[in-house]
């Protein structure tokens, strides 16, 4: 029968291997040679700006488009020859794609019916899923009678009802307003833990990726820039792109003075020398570099040392206080410090000097190609 799925009961928490997957749309390259290993039960985010190829990769995993090169393995088995309806991959679309003419319960039952699950089991599983997403009281509603968050939970329940080995979430929170988004992020994380399903979350929201993921794959223009844990991505970004895309970064031009495995020294364009992390890219002394320091990794020092500049604006943001500084060589940088009770912003125009809190907080990268 066409609807039968051979791997009906594929165990949840299968591993996923993306092996040198590349994709072209006509002549334009959407993905180049992406390789990612996702462990069973892991939640991995694909993070990157719009147009970087996240949806393309997700649709390749789901079997909706055939990659130009490379392989996809689920639980160690290649699945490239399987059409979308034979892969045990659950997917939650950005707009949820609930069947508008079916009730919540019918939506959740759809995949089970397609697998010819016995009626009694369907009823039991639907009830179980409704309980998991806490929507028992809405089982007979139509999707249009639900709020955005409720629709999303139905979409999640529908995808998980068939016990997929991989769960794919395409920008699942983008359509929700901010308060609801946080609730739903917690909810999705809870449900993902509960079901133990290997999950790929696509997002362009770095905070979302940082807070939800076990690991993050940062994509840029179809290339994998870095694959690491959220703290690693934030603390030791592998490229200028990652440093600027994840969190905020002050960027200053400089020249590499020396570098070894333990660290490096750069000279900024105003002559200041700063100790930094060892570069992750191939750079030799004398190369022009981009120096990245996050606002919270700067401190004010007595003038005479460090990067000198003047205060342009001070913003007391409750728990932190942010100053916008114009350096002597004309670059705008931000510094964020914890704000003590009664602390007021410095006056605009006052002269100050800044230094990084520690060499490990300073990244040195190949400068962005002029665009």
């Amino acid at each position: 029968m066409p609807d039968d799925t051979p791997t009906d009961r594929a165990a949840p928490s299968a591993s996923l291997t993306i092996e040198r997957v590349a994709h072209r749309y006509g002549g334009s390259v959407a993905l180049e040679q992406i390789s990612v290993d996702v462990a069973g039960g892991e939640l991995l985010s694909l993070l990157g700006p719009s147009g970087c190829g996240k949806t393309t990769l997700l649709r390749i995993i789901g079997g909706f488009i055939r990659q130009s090169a490379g392989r996809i393995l689920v639980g160690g088995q290649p699945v490239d020859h399987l059409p979308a309806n034979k892969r045990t991959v659950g997917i939650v679309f950005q707009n949820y794609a609930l069947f508008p003419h079916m009730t919540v319960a019918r939506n959740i039952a759809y995949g089970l019916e397609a697998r010819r699950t016995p009626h009694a089991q369907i009823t039991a599983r639907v009830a179980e899923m409704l309980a998991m997403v806490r929507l028992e009281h809405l089982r007979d509603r139509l999707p249009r009678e639900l709020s955005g968050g409720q629709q999303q939970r139905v979409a999640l329940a529908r995808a998980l009802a068939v016990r997929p080995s991989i769960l794919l979430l395409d920008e699942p929170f983008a359509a929700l307003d901010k308060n609801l988004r946080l609730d739903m992020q917690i909810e999705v994380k809870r449900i993902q833990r509960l079901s133990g399903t290997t999950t790929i979350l696509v997002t362009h929201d770095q905070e979302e990726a940082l807070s939800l993921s076990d690991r993050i794959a940062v994509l840029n223009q179809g290339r994998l820039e870095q694959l690491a844990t959220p703290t690693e991505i934030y603390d030791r970004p592998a490229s200028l792109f990652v440093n600027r895309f994840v969190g905020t970064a002050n960027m200053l031009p400089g020249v590499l003075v020396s570098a070894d495995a333990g660290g490096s020294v750069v000279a900024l364009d105003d002559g200041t020398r700063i100790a930094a992390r060892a570069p992750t890219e191939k750079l030799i002394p004398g190369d022009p570099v981009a120096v990245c320091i996050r606002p919270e990794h700067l401190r004010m020092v007595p003038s005479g040392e460090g990067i000198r500049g003047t205060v342009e604006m001070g913003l007391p943001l409750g728990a932190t206080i942010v100053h916008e500084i114009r350096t002597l060589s004309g670059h705008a940088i931000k510094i964020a410090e914890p704000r003590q009770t009664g602390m007021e912003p410095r006056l605009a125009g006052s002269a100050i000097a800044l230094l990084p809190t520690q060499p490990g907080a300073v990244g040195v990268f190949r400068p962005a190609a002029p665009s």
Partner: protein
Amino acid sequence: MPAYELRLAAPLAGFFALFFLAPLAILFYVSLQNGAGLDLSHYARFLFDPFSLGVLGRTLLLGAEVTALCLLLGFPLAWVYVRSPGWLRPVLMLAVLLPLLTSVVVRTFAWIVILGRQGIVNSALLSLGFTDTPLRLLYTEGGVAVALAQVQIPLMVLPLITALSRIDTNLDDASLALGAGAWRGFWRITLPLSLPGIVAGGLLTYAAAITAFITQSLVGGGQMLFMPMYIYQQATALQNWPFAAAISIVFLAAVLAVVSVFNALGRLSRTHADA
């Protein structure tokens, strides 16, 4: 509803009153005329006459056949249109609309040429050896239905395109990802969600098919009598205006009945789809 919206509809309402309701009232009045008095005798004559009832039944059946044919041919066409790339759409749309851009008379004579004893279909069948004697295609109900379906396909396809393009393409993918095959997706998702288009298209083709005087008469020939021709004969050849008026009213009532059955079916299947 604010008053100005009603006022905007007033010209249309006036138009309808003058050119539709008033003639209808006159028609009804004429249908009651019997000698000097007024009665329902013409209606009785129609409703107890097997011949007249046969014409009515055949006409309603013809509408159903044409509608079914249009749906069968039009659905795949609309489906292809909705899924085709942008540059192809104007070409397909032109192909869809082409029947409407040709004159009825020209088109009908073309069908006579195609379906005739020496026509294209017959000579093809003969030379391919599928048959020894020419088939009778012209002047048959099948021939009339095909000729009508050809011109009325746009009336089915256009509402279907509207309905199908409203369906989120992610629904197909969601259905696939849940393990359903293409057929299950079609029956459970695409078809129920395109019902409004099917109902609208069905009503249009049905109404157009049963009233298509020229095609019915020319392709049907003298042998096949349908309601429009029947009314025409009674009115002009026999000068029996009251009876022609009564037939018209009966025809109208029958069509309205069919239309409301169709509408009810549409509503019913829509609620059933999610039962």
